[in-house]
């Protein structure tokens, strides 16, 4: 048991927690925009899967990880737009239509992989960027300052998202569309335009999140995300619709995942029981939902399509 407590293990777990948190963080940040404007996009996992395949395939063909990231973003943009058409224009029941998007992404990403690639071939991964001076701090440097550029960018996106949502006109429109769309509409805010914008932001970030996942792992396989998109949606509730809360949630999840992985590698968790430990994230989410639901209210208009004059 003693080897869990060595500093080397601790450093490895924290560093990998941060890495594992990034796809969840990006997808959850995107979902926050949608939910704050009143749209629940349950299709995040499907978008992530297609973004992951697009990213993987682009890197496989070109060897350029940034082109991979861009491909994921483009796929996410298109699927975000499609989700907006379904939820905003067609006013579909959001609790179900997203499951359709998920199944579509699950099947389509696997289909494309089988047709275009076939056998899994490893690809380039993101190069680590060592932050000068900081990386030399003992322990801290190894934990926080030798990640890839996307990790730093993802964490930089948190204050940016907070700023956009709380301090800009666009953010005010998002919040108005999510809390009191009738009033916002009366004041001349186009609810559907705002919700299209947030769904596209959400889709793009989900696509990027998927690409980051695939390129970080250097691999694609069927159902690569393993439900990460659904966890990301739960994280939005977990973080009470605030980017900082979402970051804490994503880090907690990253930590739990990293710890379970590490304990498995060290064979502290017997193989027979690994399935039981794999339940941890979902169980933690349910508990967290209980606590959050007592203190915070979701946006009032969440999942309610807007029709003028209602």
């Amino acid at each position, binding site marked *: 048991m003693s080897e869990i407590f060595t500093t080397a293990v601790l450093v490895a777990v924290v560093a990998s927690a941060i890495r594992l948190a990034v796809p969840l963080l990006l997808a959850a940040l995107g979902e926050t925009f949608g939910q704050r404007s009143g749209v629940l996009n349950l299709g995040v996992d499907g978008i992530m899967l297609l973004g992951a395949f697009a990213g993987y395939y682009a890197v496989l063909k070109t060897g350029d990880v940034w082109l991979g990231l861009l491909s994921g973003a483009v796929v996410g943009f298109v699927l975000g737009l499609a989700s907006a058409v379904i939820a905003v224009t067609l006013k579909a029941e959001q609790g179900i*239509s997203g499951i359709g*998007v998920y199944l579509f992404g699950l*099947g389509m990403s696997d289909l494309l992989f089988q047709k275009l690639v076939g056998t899994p071939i490893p690809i380039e991964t993101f190069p680590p960027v060592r932050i000068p001076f900081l990386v030399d701090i003992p322990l801290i440097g190894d934990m926080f300052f030798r990640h890839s550029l996307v990790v730093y960018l993802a964490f930089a996106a948190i204050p940016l998202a907070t700023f956009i949502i709380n301090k800009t006109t666009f953010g005010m429109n998002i919040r108005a569309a999510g809390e009191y769309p009738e009033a916002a509409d009366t004041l001349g805010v186009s609810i559907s335009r705002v919700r299209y914008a947030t769904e596209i932001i959400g889709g793009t970030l989900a696509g990027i999140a998927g690409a980051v996942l695939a390129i970080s792992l250097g691999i694609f396989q069927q159902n690569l995300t393993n439900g990460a998109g659904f966890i990301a949606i*739960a994280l939005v509730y977990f973080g009470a619709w605030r980017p900082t809360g979402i970051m804490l949630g994503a880090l907690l999840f990253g930590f739990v995942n990293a710890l379970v992985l590490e304990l498995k590698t060290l064979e502290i968790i017997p193989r027979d029981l690994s399935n039981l430990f794999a339940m941890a994230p979902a169980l933690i989410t349910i508990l967290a939902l209980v606590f959050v639901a007592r203190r915070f209210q979701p946006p009032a208009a969440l999942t309610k*399509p807007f029709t003028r004059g209602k």
Partner: protein
Amino acid sequence: MTNGLSPRQRRGLAYSIPVLAVVAALIFGAVMLVLLGANPIEAYVEMFKGAFGSADALIATILKATPLLFVGVGIVIAFRAGVINIGAEGQMVLGGLFATMAALYLPEMPSIIMIPVVLIAGIAGGALWGWIPGALKAYYRVNEILSTIMLNIVAVQLMSYLLRGPLIDPAEIERGTRIPQTERLAPSADLPLIFGSDRLHIGPVLAILSAIAAYYLLWRTPLGYRLRAVGLSEDAAKYAGIPVRRTIALALTLSGALAGLAGAVLVFGSESHRMVTDGSTLGFTGGAGFNGIVAALLGGLHPLWTIPASFLFGGLIVGGQALQRAVQVPSALIIALNGLVVIFVVAADRYRAKLLAVDEWDEQTVEGDDAPGEGDLAALGSVQDHGPDGSGGVDPEEPA
């Protein structure tokens, strides 16, 4: 767009909209087939033949439709109470596990006792997995969409753990193959076969009975009245003295119970008479937990109309598998098409509700352009009371 139509025409159009949505998904599928280098016409002919073209095909379709119907009826009950149950996948798994454990651990009993016992165990497993999110929603305001999705994930891991460990077939350990499956379960629990078939068991009959029972429950009993009242307006229901929280918890419990029964029927109606997993829910349920939602929507959220809707949708799935074999496309295509059917049916649902709503609103000459059924499923529920079978509620054709 609907003003030039008579109420009858509008209703006819309304009920053809879900079918049109399926057709739209199939057209999209044809495009994908072309891209995959297959002939879409040949593919769809194979699909139709595979689903409805022979007695064997029809039996396969009926068996595939059975879990869809159980789940779909449960979805209808939950929806009528204003709750969305995305957790039928996990509830089916729990139902299958409970029923399997009953068959493994209980002493041998004659079939007449054994079969009801394992089915009730399945119902209990599903009910438990429905009660948890139901109680969390009712008493802790936890969003049921999220909690049921999380419980699906938990159920999968539980299934993998049990079928790889405590419940694994001892022969798998001896052989060293370790396929995650149970031994062949007690033959006394095999579902009886009907019509002299070697595959068709009583499961479909039970599913149809459950649809009739749900119809009776929802429109002929005080409990059903309470469920629908909560779905229409929680505030009004509370005002009327209905225990809203308990009713919400009960709606998800009932919904889960039916999904659990579906899981038990899957195990004891399977040809191998074991519970097997491939490590995903879809591997056990065949996606029935999600597709049951679509069947319910295709059936206009009415228990009886969910019967033909499940049959059609079962045909679509069985046909899809035949198509996959005939024109050699990966099964992933079927999952993707399945997703498209979900999207198109859900997206079209609003329009159907709108057509019906205009109809009812005209009859009642209520002012205002805010049609019910457009904003939420609860209002859709009220519209659907006037089912095409003329059952339940007041027939809008008759002046009140």
